[in-house]
């Protein structure tokens, strides 16, 4: 029987995915972060199950992007994830109809990717907000110190940032909405155009909020 706490290396050994890739999945909000921090950081069985199901989704729907696969994963209930990870049930059966819908929704992925490559000065969000630098809103990359902030503090800061963003987004020409599903019933919606690193930050925020919502007070 497998244990209930896993190191990053354990996750890698169980799934054949490189530790740095797993870490990037955590950063992108695909997987929950560790329960504890530091060298001995431990991940829960839920993380292992989610990673296994995420790989199954990517195997089943080969043309979905990482972001699309993440949406699929978030559409599953904890019980469905546990069952799929244990080899009970088929991803295609559970997610087939949703996959078609997600693909339709993501026909604009290439466009979003290309627009995300443009310098932030060309972004509608920032060009229409004089005096506000993109780096001031979101740091381009996360730092280790952010990782070590308590989840509640991270979420509070994130919410404050989001409030600022929502204000600066007024008057935008487009109506681009990014939706991050937190639970089956709750989602986080953000309007505007964002660079990939900014979207990654949103997913981290989503993680913190999800943890708050599903686990109560974070450790």
């Amino acid at each position, binding site marked *: 029987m497998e244990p209930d706490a896993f190191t990053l290396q354990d996750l890698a050994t169980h799934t054949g995915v490189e530790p740095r890739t797993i870490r990037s999945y955590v950063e992108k909000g695909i997987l929950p972060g560790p329960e504890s921090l530091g060298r001995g950081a431990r991940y829960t069985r839920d993380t292992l199950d989610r990673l296994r199901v995420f790989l199954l989704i990517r195997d089943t729907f080969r043309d979905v992007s990482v972001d699309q696969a993440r949406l699929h994963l978030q559409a599953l209930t904890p019980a469905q994830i546990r069952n799929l990870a244990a080899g009970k049930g088929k991803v295609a059966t559970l997610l087939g109809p949703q996959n078609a819908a997600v693909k339709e929704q993501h026909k604009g992925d*290439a466009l979003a990717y290309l627009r995300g490559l443009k310098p932030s000065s060309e972004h509608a969000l920032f060009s229409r907000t004089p005096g506000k630098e993109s780096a001031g809103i979101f740091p381009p990359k996360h730092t280790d110190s952010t990782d070590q902030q308590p989840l509640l503090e991270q979420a509070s800061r994130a919410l404050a940032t989001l409030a600022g963003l929502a204000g600066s987004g007024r008057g935008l020409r487009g109506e681009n909405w990014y939706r991050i599903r937190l639970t089956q019933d709750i989602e986080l919606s953000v309007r505007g155009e964002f660079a990939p690193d900014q979207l990654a930050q949103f997913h981290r925020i989503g993680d913190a909020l999800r943890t708050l919502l599903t686990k109560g007070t974070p450790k």
Partner: protein
Amino acid sequence: MTIPSSHNANGHHAGSQHTGNGPLGAAPRIGALLDRNIVHTAGRSVRHLVITIDAPLDQTAASRPRLPLNLGLVIDASGSMDGRPLEAAKAAALGVVDALQESDHLSLVSFATSAQSHACNVRMDALGKAAVREAIRPLVSRDSTDLAAGWLLGCEGIAERLAAAQGVERNQCILLSDGHANRGECDPAVLAQHAHQLRVRGVLTSTVGIGIGYSPTQLQAIAEAAGGRMHDAEQPEEIVEIVLAELAETLSTTVENLELCLKLPEGVVAEVYGTTPATATGRQLDLIVGALRSGASRRVVVKLTFPAGTSGDRLPIGVAARWKNPGAEGLHTSPALAVEALFGSAADCQAQPRPTDTAQRVAEQWQAHIQHRGLALNQDGAGEAATEFVRQELEHFRSYCHGLPEGDRLTNLLERFLQTIHRRYDPVAAKEMLFSSYKLSRSEADLRRRKRSSTEEFLRTEEAKANQGQPPQEPRRP
């Protein structure tokens, strides 16, 4: 990719299931086999996995309307294109406009110091064609080369159409360039990353290198990661024929985004011959093969070095493919082929037969691989490294070729390379040889009609130069 459990037990060659819909929904035929199955218990045995992919024939193409094309044409208009090359590129663009149908859309971009969009998502009806022709004619050359800006702007036009299109179309960018990118993003690895991201989002790119001064590194990186093809048009008059031929290849493509996935046993080290992009994750190796036109065949050879083991133990290797059929939704996955290696004694290894035709295919791909890698080092000014690389490879290649019909010729070719590769080759000839080995390693046709010098002729010239004591070529800087 997880290898499906239903696999062919012997696995040496099997057609994959047909899961598509309609004439363009047919599956490629995938085969895989080892040149020799028994590996030594002491370890370090080298075997070659030969994977063959035969694209389905589209026999009904003439009897039904083709898929609409969402095309981006990106033209290098930097200063070095001034004159005949730019005029030829414009002629090629006009030829493309003539060849497109009313249901197609075209985006036209030129780039130099900056990128300019001349037409974005223009429907190719009579009015649209007239407008694009008007946009092409006044194109003039301008300063330096921001290849990335031009290419990405061309892709943006395609992406806009992709986002808005109601039905399924072929989304393809053709990038024509004669020079090294010297502005904007120039790193081939970064360009390849963008190409990969666009490919998985449905936008493919093929590239055409113009003249002798283009950077094959950047154009090759883009074409390979973008699931397209790289072409060479050394002479301006070839540009039109190459661009139109690429358009024809695009329209006759029956398999897109083809990727191979290998599941390797613990301890097995893999190296892919040629230029096929490969990503290893744990014991899995993913290879990007890209697009194949109707009826095309492609061979991929992977060198495998085996660990030590116990006599009689088996080492299963899984091979599966996934691809997209133009005009069909979603990716298809083939049933997995299982190829097995078996641990045995030195005597077992010596006694096992080797299929000559398979070994011959391996030798051809291996020779092209050595030639390509050696030439790339030579052109980077790393003559000593090139010599050492060819020498080490030749040591094993010579014995491998023993007894093969073409073995002596291939070995002799590499021995002559070894004698001259420390001197920097003439860049024009080296580029030609790089291109030839690139095409050979990808089993792709050279679309140019004008005959080029053979490898033997090229080597003869270099040997003559060495004998006459001519100084080697100075490294060329863009």
